[in-house]
Structure formats: structure tokens, C-alpha cells
């Protein structure tokens, strides 16, 4: 059961909308994608964001063919960096039912309009990089290309909202999308914290600072790392200490009445002393042991998994997250994330391949609208 069968999406992909098109394809839409921009991208990015789409060669785009595709599309995802070199605005005007999502790095008419941007520079201005990393080293981005991913999700959201409005009004519309805003929206803490407290957040490494003290978030264990923090959740704290007590490893933690403690208000030296007891306990146990206790007792502790462990996760396998994808460019098969979520009776799988680009003259929708 696909959710969007027959939905026709034309995508001009330059990074900002690519994941949005991928989401719509995963939901069953028929997505034709033209890579724009001319900058060489790593193959892994092409594979990750464009499998399941029909790829169209960027060279030799014929105006008549482009006009036909825009005229037949329900949705146009338009990554627009500078100007409108393909004349898409005029083509879109001839399709009154078209939902035209125009994604730019910044707003179309603001002071940053027309500025060049990449994933890294968008992360910088979002306020996220300033809090990622260690206090004694430069700011860091998040792994992957999160500004592009966030903008892509918003592009899919905009398209689907436009679709719903079209059902009511019978008309398409233009939707301008800012990557700067999309990325900044993910930064839900820093601006509001400044507005209300005047405090400016900085990098704190793996320490989570709340109130006058900070607590550790990442802990070495016998065979890797886990994440867990002392938080103001008395039942959770008691649950961890109970298991530690069974091993005689709880020490002074046994006598603490967690209901009467507000971690954020405790003295840092006291926090460190308590954390040393937790740390010694974690260090003696494996990820599997700690993960199993967390699942059974509701500790909120998570095993920190590397990419291979995520690929091999029994849980994610049971939910069918990873799927086999044919990489026609590289001539191999690879396991990649497939379904976006679980729903209904499951989804008819969209085409699970990264196809070779075809000339635009050969591009056609795979199903009637």
C-alpha cells in the first residue's frame, strides 16, 4: 500500500531538495530528478538521496522536454541557487495545478538573498555549530549534511501541504522555502535561551549543563560506550542504583533519597563523586548487559552504536529499516535505509535502485496521474 501512488514529482536537485524527493519517492510518488549545479558530489550522496527516482542527465536539457515535464507534474521541487536559469517560473505559470516548491539558501528578498551557501555554511549560521564539539577546539558540524537533510524534509512537508490545499481549492501554488530557516528551526534552545536568560550557549563537550552543574552524557563500558545521564527522575535513578546494589557496587548512592535531590542544583564536586561510582559500574559491564538492563528497567541508557552495529541491529531488522538497493552506477548491491516509518499494512516497495541517468527526451512518468 503506497501512500502517494501516481503523484508526479519533478525535482531539480542541487542538495537542498534531494532528500525531500527521496522521501516522496519512498512514499510511492513517481519522482523524476535532474541534478543541477555542475559540482561533482560524492557517489555516496548520490546513492543515498537518489535511489528510487528516475534520474535524468543534466547535460542537454531540452526546453521543450522540460516544458512537457513541468506541465505534467503535480509537484516541482526546485533547488534554486542563483536566478532562474532554466526559466522554471514561466513554465510553472502554465500549470495552474502545480505545487512549486522553490528552495533557496536564504529568503528570496531578504538581506542575504542570493548569497552562496553549502551545508557547512548553513550549519554555521544556524547557531548549531557553536554548541557542537569541545570547548577548547573549533565548532563542529553534525555528521552527514544536516542542513540539506532538514531543508529536504521541509521541502517534502511543503509539497504535501500544498497537495492538501489543492484538494480544497483545486489550485496549485508557489511555496518559497529557506534553508537557513529550516536549519535554524532545528536549533530549538539557543535563541530562546538568550531571549529569556541572556545566556549564550557554547560547546561543553559531552557534559550536559543545566543549572549550576553539569552531568556526563557518554560513558566508557567494558566493550565500548553508552550514553546515560543523572537526571531528575527519581524512579529511574532508584532503578539503576537497585541493580548496582545487587552487585554491591552502589556505595554511597544507596542512601540517597533521589526525590529530595535536584541534580541541576547540586554542587559539581558532589556530582563528580556520584558519577565516579556510576562510572566504575558501567566500566565493568558490556554494552549488551547494560542495554538489556536499560530495556528491562527503564533506565534511559542507550548503547552507542557505530554504523556497522546500526546496520546489524536486530531491532531495526525487525522493523525492516534497511533494504537492498541496486547501485547501477557502481554495479553492486548495498543496504540502505528504506521505509521512513511503519504504517498501515506496510508499503509496496518503490524501485530499490540507483538508476543510470537517461536523456530528458526519454523521460516519462511511470504511471498515469
Amino acid at each position, binding site marked *: 500500500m503506497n501512500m*502517494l*501512488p501516481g503523484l508526479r514529482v519533478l525535482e531539480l536537485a542541487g542538495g537542498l531538495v534531494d532528500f525531500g524527493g527521496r522521501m516522496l519517492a519512498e*512514499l510511492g510518488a513517481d519522482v523524476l530528478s535532474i541534478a543541477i549545479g555542475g*559540482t561533482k*558530489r560524492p557517489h555516496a*550522496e548520490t*546513492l543515498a538521496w537518489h535511489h528510487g527516482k528516475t534520474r535524468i542527465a543534466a547535460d542537454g536539457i531540452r526546453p521543450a522536454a522540460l516544458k512537457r515535464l513541468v506541465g505534467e507534474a503535480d509537484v516541482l521541487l526546485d533547488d534554486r541557487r542563483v536566478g532562474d536559469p532554466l526559466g522554471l517560473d514561466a513554465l510553472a505559470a502554465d500549470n495552474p495545478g502545480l505545487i512549486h*516548491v522553490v528552495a533557496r539558501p*536564504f529568503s528570496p*528578498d*531578504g538581506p542575504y538573498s542570493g548569497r*552562496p551557501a*553549502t551545508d*557547512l555554511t548553513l*550549519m*554555521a549560521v*544556524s547557531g548549531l555549530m*557553536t554548541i*557542537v*564539539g*569541545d570547548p577548547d577546539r573549533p*565548532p*563542529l558540524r*553534525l555528521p552527514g549534511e*544536516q542542513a540539506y537533510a532538514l*531543508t529536504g*524534509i*521541509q521541502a517534502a512537508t511543503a509539497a*504535501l*501541504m*500544498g*497537495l*492538501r*490545499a489543492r484538494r480544497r481549492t483545486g489550485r496549485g*501554488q508557489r511555496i518559497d522555502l*529557506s534553508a537557513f530557516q*529550516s536549519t*535554524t*528551526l*532545528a536549533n*530549538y534552545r539557543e535563541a530562546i*535561551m538568550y531571549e*529569556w536568560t541572556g*545566556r*549564550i550557549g*557554547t560547546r561543553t563537550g*559531552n557534559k550536559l*549543563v543545566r543549572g549550576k552543574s553539569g552531568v556526563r552524557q557518554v560513558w566508557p563500558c567494558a566493550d565500548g560506550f553508552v*550514553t546515560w545521564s543523572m537526571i531528575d527522575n527519581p524512579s529511574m535513578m532508584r532503578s539503576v542504583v537497585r541493580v548496582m546494589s545487587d552487585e554491591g557496587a552502589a556505595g554511597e548512592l544507596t542512601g540517597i533519597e533521589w526525590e529530595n535531590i535536584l541534580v541541576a542544583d547540586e554542587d559539581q564536586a558532589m556530582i563528580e563523586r556520584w558519577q565516579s561510582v556510576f562510572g566504575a559500574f558501567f566500566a565493568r559491564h558490556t554494552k549488551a548487559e547494560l542495554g538489556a538492563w536499560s*530495556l528491562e528497567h527503564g533506565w534511559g541508557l*542507550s548503547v552507542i*552504536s557505530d*554504523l556497522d552495529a*546500526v546496520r546489524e541491529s536486530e*531491532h531495526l531488522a525487525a*522493523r525492516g529499516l534497511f533494504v537492498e538497493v541496486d547501485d547501477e552506477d557502481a554495479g553492486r548491491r548495498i543496504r540502505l535505509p528504506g*521505509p*521512513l*516509518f*511503519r504504517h498501515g499494512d506496510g508499503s509496496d516497495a518503490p524501485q530499490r535502485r540507483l538508476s543510470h541517468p537517461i536523456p530528458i527526451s526519454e523521460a516519462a512518468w511511470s504511471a498515469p496521474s
Partner: protein
Amino acid sequence: MGALDDLKVADFSWVGAGPRATKDLADNGAMVIKIESRKRLDLGRMSPPFAPAGRKNPDASAFFAQSNTSKKSVTIDLTDPRGVEMAKSLVAWADVVVENFGPGFMDRIGLGYEALKAINPDIIYASVSVAGRSGPMAGFRGYGNSAAAQSGHAAMSGWPDSEPHMPPFAYGDVVAPMFLTVAILAALEHRDRTGQGQHVDVSQIEPMVHVIADLFADPALSGKPGNTHPLFAPHGVFPCRGEENWIAIAIETDAQWTTLCAALEAPEWLRSSDYATASARVANRERIEAAIAELTRDLDKVGLAARFAAAGVPAGPVLNGKEVFENEELRAAGHFVKCEHPVLGPSMMPAPPMRFSDTPGAVRRAPLLGEHTLEVFAEMLDGQSERVEQLRREEVLA
């Protein structure tokens, strides 16, 4: 007229992962009724920062306010069977039910999908949880950073020579609700086509895996990339004048490199043909990035970024919370909307990042706790105002 003007949502979600999705819907015109309880306050209402009224006032949290704009709030005691019946009347009215409670809670109180489908057969029931509602870890209790740990994000975050890194914000609480919004909208489209509702089950882990799919697509990837890019250099963050001032520069073409060198008045050796190609620059990344750092060190980050932008070089100052809040581009784009709130006073609330030409959204202030209880139930249970008042007096609607 918003894009979702005719959409009705019964929102049982709380804290971050659910409310951020229903904010997306509400800001674009959906009628979102947030079901809350005075006995079991939304933890978001107890989360800082607070207005001067303080943390004991359930309406003083700016954290809550920014995640719950444009919604209505009703209070129901869901531990009372009469409260559950009132909740069911909302379900009968709604197109969509959203929940992010702990595993099994909605089933235990009689508000699971199967029960609600019996009331409203084409209901769209949207769940978001750390590990999803099926699979061996379906019972896992955690929080946003659990998803970072279990998706590969924490392992791939931080400097290449460092232990896994957990930034001080829950990215899983950002990405998962965005997927939830997409799931709800796609399910609505499906229902419009088929007449069928369904249960959409969003895990926080899976969206976090999806947004680093490019890392999973690279079997040769070894270690954490930090700020580097496999094909481009310089690609990183460089010091600027003053304390904790940095600029990000990402050179993707040889022409941008030439322009960067000219703009920084780079020394001759850096401009030489030895570094004219991307592959040569990547091979000598450390050397050229150290040289760039020396050239930016005494320059103002904002002025330099503007100069680079004018020359066509992708660059951006690393902004902090204050600079984001005061940023001229965000202000001009309407990213923060000033809302008058009875407890917070005038406060800036984040708006959606998109502008609809025909169906613009509108951001309104977050509701006070239970502000719309009487209004909503008086309308829903037309002609039974005495019963509604009685339930309120008996703290069923509380």
C-alpha cells in the same frame, strides 16, 4: 486561509517529539486541540527557560510556548473513565490523533488504535516514540539523545580522535517530529484517495538513520569526518578576530578557490598551481587550512562573510544564540513572530520556514493550560453545557 484549514487534530502528545509535529500543522491552519492534564503536567510546561512568573506557573515556560504555538488546550483527567469518554468525543471529531506516551499507555487507558478505529473508522493515528511501537526494543524508555546513540549519530559526531559525542540538544526530538508531520500529511493524502485511515508509527531512531544515509552509503568510510569533505578543501571553520569568533568556509570549485585567495590576499605559494585543483587541495588539506586560518585570524567574521558572499565564495559566520536571535536575515524573513502571551508577555516564536503564495500560515501564541476546555467541549457537546460544567467541577475536565 492556511494550507491545512480544514484539518482537525486531537493531540495527546507532550514534551518535544509530538508537539513539534502538531505545531507544524497548527501554524499552517489545522485546528489542533492539545489534550493535557493538571494532574500530570506536560513536562514541556516544566522546562526552562521561564518567564519571571517562574517554573511553578504552568504557563510560564518559553520552551513549551515555542513548541505549542497556534494550538488550543483542553484539560482531561485520563485516569477517570469519564475523562476517557470525553477524550473519545474528541477522537470522533478529529481527522488525526497524535500520541507519544510511553509504551502501552494509550492501550491501557482504552485509547489505542484499535479502540479508536471503532469510534472513528478512518482516523489517522500517529505515534512517535524512541524505538517505534514494534520490534524487540518497542518497550524502550528513553529520550531524544537515545536516538542519537542508536542511530550512529553519536558515534560519528565529534573530532576524529575523540570519543563519541553528544551535543547538548536532542536532535532526535527535532528530526522525528518532522518525519511525523510528513507521515501524517501522506496518510491524509492516502485517505483522501482511498477513504482509509491508518496507524503511522514513527521511531526516533529511524529518521536519525535516514538523515545520515549518505554515511551508510559509503562502505569505505572509516572514522569521523569532523568538518572535512571528501572532495573539497578548504572545508572547515577558521578563527576570526575576537574570542570565540569563527567563520565556516566551503570551497567547492576551483574558481571559488581563486576568488578566496584573492579576497584574502593569500601568499604566492598558496595561489600556485600546486593547489589549483580540488584533489590537490584535499591532499594538502592540513597545510592550506592552517594557512587560511592565519589569514582570517584578525578579520571580523560578519564582514568577512559578507565580502566572501559578494565575491561568490560560500562562507558563513558561526553564529551563537544571541546572534541567531538578532539576525537581520531571520528577522526580515519573519522567522521569529512576536506573540502577545498573557504570562510570557511579548515573546518571539519560531515560524515555519516556508511561505505559501495562496494559503499563508499564521503563528499564534501557545495556549494557557486548559484555556479552551469549556469552549471546545461546549461546542462539541452542543446542548450539554451543564454536563460539561459538572465534569469541570468534579475535576474530570482538569
